[in-house]
């Protein structure tokens, strides 16, 4: 296995305009493997976005190192390679679309990378097909739904041929069907194209699909493991201001009543199977 992103005791401090300093990252050691699907959870202000911005050199650490595919993000000469390898999708779809036509926006990244124009055309078409938005290529982005806009933003990253995509709460402003569109797209890119995914979210059910879940609190990683490891610790998750899927909590409640169920049930299907067995 090769490392996609590896950090060593990364610290980052902000100084607010009142002069107060905030330790947003306080010693982060994380290593994300190529092809992995990683979810990062944590309450508001725990440092998730700050960490994400370190993964493609939008921010640099005060101390510690971040290696993206073995390139140190402090290496200024490699800045554009790093940003091409690790693409980023942000929360508000409206604030990351540059152009007034969908396909022009998707072309923005490759154009910046000085890709040849025929090749850009090819990449744009492929990227739009990959997110299932090809038929909207001539549309104006302001007429699309939130979920569609986010898929355009993802296409804009894919067209840069990244090896890793970091998504900072891409579904926060979407409705359930928009969220599903985006999550399905992400999963497909991970499984079919082998793109490494780092997903930051407040929706626990989205993290259930990940290979690995990290939980942040006050600039530190406080939990990590498979979704089953992490979500089965219902009390701890709640104490961190987070949540678990409803079935996991039902299961937890039943276990407290002495029902013999495994602790790590995450989906309705698993729960049905287990309960039918008990019957």
């Amino acid at each position, binding site marked *: 296995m090769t490392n996609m992103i590896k950090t060593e005791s990364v610290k980052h401090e902000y100084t607010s305009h009142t002069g107060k300093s905030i330790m947003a990252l306080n010693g982060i050691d994380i290593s994300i493997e190529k092809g992995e699907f990683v979810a990062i959870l944590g309450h*508001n202000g725990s440092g998730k976005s700050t960490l994400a911005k370190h993964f493609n050199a939008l921010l640099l650490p005060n101390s510690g190192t971040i290696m993206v595919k073995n390139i140190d993000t402090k290496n200024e000469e490699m800045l554009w390679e790093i940003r091409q390898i690790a693409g980023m999708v942000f929360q508000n779809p409206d604030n990351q679309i540059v152009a007034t036509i969908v396909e022009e926006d998707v072309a923005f990244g490759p154009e910046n990378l000085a890709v040849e124009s025929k090749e850009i055309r090819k990449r744009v078409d492929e990227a739009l097909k990959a997110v299932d938005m090809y038929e909207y290529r001539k549309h104006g982005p302001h007429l699309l739904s939130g*979920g569609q806009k986010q898929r355009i933003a993802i296409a804009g990253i894919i067209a840069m041929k990244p090896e890793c995509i970091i998504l900072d709460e891409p579904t*926060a402003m979407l*409705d359930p069907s928009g969220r599903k569109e985006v999550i399905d797209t992400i999963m497909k890119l991970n499984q079919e194209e082998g793109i490494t995914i780092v997903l930051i979210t407040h929706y626990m059910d989205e993290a259930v699909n990940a290979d690995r879940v990290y939980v942040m609190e006050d600039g530190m990683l406080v939990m990590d493991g498979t979704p089953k490891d992490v979500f089965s610790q219902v009390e701890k998750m709640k104490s961190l201001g987070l*949540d678990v899927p409803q*079935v996991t909590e039902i299961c937890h409640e039943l276990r407290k009543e002495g029902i013999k169920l495994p602790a790590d049930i995450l989906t309705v299907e698993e729960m049905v199977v287990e309960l*039918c067995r008990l019957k």
Partner: protein
Amino acid sequence: MSIKVENLSYIYMKDTVFEHKALDDVSFEIKDGEFLGLIGHTGSGKSTLIQHLNGLMKPTSGKVFIDEDDINSKTTVKKTIRERVGLVFQYPEHQLFEETVFRDVAYGPKNLGLDDNEIENRVRFALDMVKLDYNEIKDISPFDLSGGQKRRVAIAGVLAMKPKILILDEPTAGLDPRGRDEILGEIKELHETHKITVILVSHSMEDIAKLVDKIIVMNKGKIVFIDKPSVIFRESLMLESIGLGVPQATKLARELKEKGLDIGECLSIEDAKLQILKVLRSKKND
């Protein structure tokens, strides 16, 4: 206070190529003191509808009554309607503008022309309702607060108008689970202790199921259902066909029932726990 909507229709950009019927012959009634949920997929017309309920938008056709007053008649003063019907928009923290929390929350009461004493009372009341400490926070700039606190201050800005009807458009969007539960808890408390009529727009079926007495389901500008949550969430196939869903607990109960377990309707974790325990224990006693 009650709301009655009669044959309400609204068309955006009438008479252009972009013409779009966002509300199509909508009628319903909400009784005093009800807690109502409004659900529907993106673009189904929820935001358009609630803006009609305090006169921010004028119907293309149809009428809206607040306590028997037709809010669009010439004799009704808009300000008295907005005093009675408070509307909290999506991401309400984007409307903050004053230098201190006190002054921002006081903006609404000031517009109502209240005296300083009453304004202060209102601000205290409103900050209290959203669980912020008046003395600690009143002189801080709202822009120095955390996301969740900003959201609370913004909601307090509407509560300070002391509305009899409170409408909230996705008040928990973007908050973490704890922040979400806290704000919903505060709204619930407001409803119970002050007998305010509440309309909650939300995309979370779990939250809706947990909180409301009655649900309005919208699809493509029309109301397709109005009923109790237990009745609405029975229609999971219909809900899915219009881009909505049911709470996980409800889905679990339904699938267990299909497998032959004797389980009734469940809307919450608590329901599901009790029902499943009942079934499992009765089996043991056989």
